[in-house]
Each structure stands twice: as C-alpha cells, then as structure tokens.
C-alpha cells in the first residue's frame, strides 16, 4: 500500500523519528514521508511509534492508499525531494 506519514512531535524527538522513518520511506519534506510499504512494515512502524513517542503530546498521522495510482499529488513551488528510484 502507499503510505503518507506526517508527524508533529516534541522537538527533542524530531530527529529520532526522522532517522527511523528514513529507513522505510522517502523523505519528501520536513516531517513528511511517503512511499510504498507492506502491511507488516507499517505494523512495525506503528509499534515503534507506540514505544518511542509520548502518546500524551506527540501526534502522528498516517494516510494510506491502496496504491500510488489512487493518490494524486501536486507540487507547488520547489519539489524538495523526489521519490524517484532512478538517480
């Protein structure tokens, strides 16, 4: 499935979350990641969040679409990081 993760966490955890998500998804902007994941991979990510975040004040949003085809995306201004795999 195609996943978009957006997070807003306390400053001292920002770098930690960023580092972790970078191993699974493409980093498109500050606090925004997207990419193709399997169900199991997403579960692993959710579990990690539950263990490493302060669920009282941190917030993470996970958007999923069954495939990249069902997600339309427009970029206005600069595309900071493309998700291309041909570099």
């Amino acid at each position, binding site marked *: 499935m195609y996943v978009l993760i957006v997070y807003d966490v306390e400053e001292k955890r920002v770098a930690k979350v960023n*580092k972790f998500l*970078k*191993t*699974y*998804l*493409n*980093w498109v902007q500050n606090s925004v990641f997207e*990419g*193709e*994941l*399997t169900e199991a*991979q997403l579960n692993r990510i959710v579990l990690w969040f539950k263990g490493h975040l302060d669920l009282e004040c941190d917030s993470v949003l996970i958007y999923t679409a069954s495939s990249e085809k069902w997600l339309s995306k427009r970029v206005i201004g600069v595309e900071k*990081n493309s998700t291309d*795999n*041909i*570099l």
Partner: protein
Amino acid sequence: MKRSVYINTNGRLSRKDNTLYLESETYGKKPIPVNNTQEIFLFGEIDLNTRLINFLGQNNITLHVFNYYGYYSGSFYPREHLPSGFLLVKQVEKYKDEYERLKIAKEIINGATHNILKNVKYYSNRKEGLDEYVERIENERKNVKDAKTISELMGVEGRIRNIYYSAFEIIIDGKFEFKNRTMNPPDNPINALISFGNSMMYSTVLTEIYNTQLNPTISYLHEPGERRFSLSLDISEIFKPIIVDRIIFSLVNQKMIREEHFDQELGMCYLNEKGRVIFQREFDEKLATIIKHPKLNRSVSYRRLVRLECYKLIKHILDEEEYEALKMWW
C-alpha cells in the same frame, strides 16, 4: 514491494543513520530507505566503503556494478541467507544426470522460443511481411524436442534467435539499421539496446535467485562455468523476449529512444546516460506491471513471475512437480 534503485550519477554511497545515503552534486545528500530496497544498480562512478558493504549484507541487498559502457561487471552477492545443502545436492544431481539435465534445458528453450514466437505473432497482426518469420520459427521449434544433446539444443536455439533477430528490422519499421547480432562490443544501436537490456535482466534474475534456496552457479542449459552465475543466464532466456525485447520495440517504435541517445565511436555503440535512464525507467515499470495469474488466481507482477520461475525449478529439482517454463499467456 521492495524497490530497485538505479544510480547513474557520480558520487558516494554510504551508510548513515542506519540507512543508505547517496551524496552527489546533482542530488546533494539523499537518503534511500534501506528497508524498502531490494537491489541497487550502479552505473555512475560511485565511492563506497566496507561499512556500506557490511550494511548491505545485513539487509540482504544485492549490488550490481556496471562499467562506463553500461556493461555488467559483477555483483555484490551477500552471504547466502537461505542456504540449503539438501537442495544443492539435488541441484547437482539433476545436472550430473545427462537425461535429466537435457529435460530441464529443453523446457527452458521451449519456454523461451514460445515467448519469442508470441512476440513475432503479436507484431505480425499489425505489420506486413512477418508471417514468413512466424512460419520459419514454428518449423525450427519442432526440432527442440528431438535434440539429443545440449549442443544440438543450443544450435536450434541459435537458429531460432537468428530468424527472430532478422525480423527485428520489420518490427521496428527500419528506424534503426539492424543486420545481425554483435556483442563485445555492440556495433549499432539495436545491438547496444539488446546487450544493455540483457545485462539488466541477468542481474534482476540473480537478485531473485538470491532470495530462493537455489545455487546460482549450477545451471542446466548453459555450461556452469567459473566466475559467473550461469543459472541466472538460464532463467533469463525465458524472460528476455517478454521484458527486454518488448521494451526495445516500444521504446524505438514510440521514438522514445533516438539516435542521440547513443555514443558511437569506431564501430562501437553504447547507450549514453540519457538513454540509459529512459531504458531503466521503462524496465522498472515493466517489472512492476501486474497481470492476473490464471493458476494462482491472483495478480502478480512480472518481477514476481521471475521468482515463481525459481520456485517451479526448485519443485522440479525436489521431484515434487514437473518443471514447466513460463509461456506467455497474455
């Protein structure tokens, strides 16, 4: 599904923050998600260190290296993560028994030539003058089952391939001149495309073999040589017409690949960087194309078909189910 990463720029690939980083002039520092990477193709001049190699090993990522001309140089094949001594012994047994070996080799050729024929037939519906080639291939194909030795079988395969290649000029409407297949080095654009595509196919198959218990050095059609993974040559035969040749036809016919995408010098011809990127994009998309598998009754990608081919071969080797090569049904 895990992705393949194709790197065409020059720069440095390293391990950082427990993931992969590509540092280059064009991209700056770009993180690549390790957990979502299955294989990496290196076409540019890339620096890397053992820290990265260890990391790739841990994550079972295969790394394929291509030289300046886009020629396959070799792969970093991480420590076998699914070794099976039992299967290896069986695999060798099937090779040692000449009758059994010939049986597998014939089935591979049977599948490969069926797919070749399917390609020519597909175009004979829309282009004039291909019927004659269809007939010639069909006639030659009858000799496959009568072949007594591997070399005889290779001869049949070679003749079919010659007929097939001579049909290329009609299929591509003579947009490029193509007389016969030359390698080492390719001398014209079509040969360059075939060589490049085949080596991409070869390494993709290798990655899929890596993810099964098969040993890539023991093959049936090709002689298991030294310093090469000949089983992936065997399996590639089946997929070359389906993937590589189809890409070439559509790229040339839709004028996506043109004269300017090749570097030509002194009887040598290679795809340049722009051309390579176009081909890779097409290749990547092709492998991700999903079709309905009638037997499994679910949708699978072309890449998955390669893996399934390995599984079928394993089943045959373990005497569980007779191997039947993939024959294009679509």
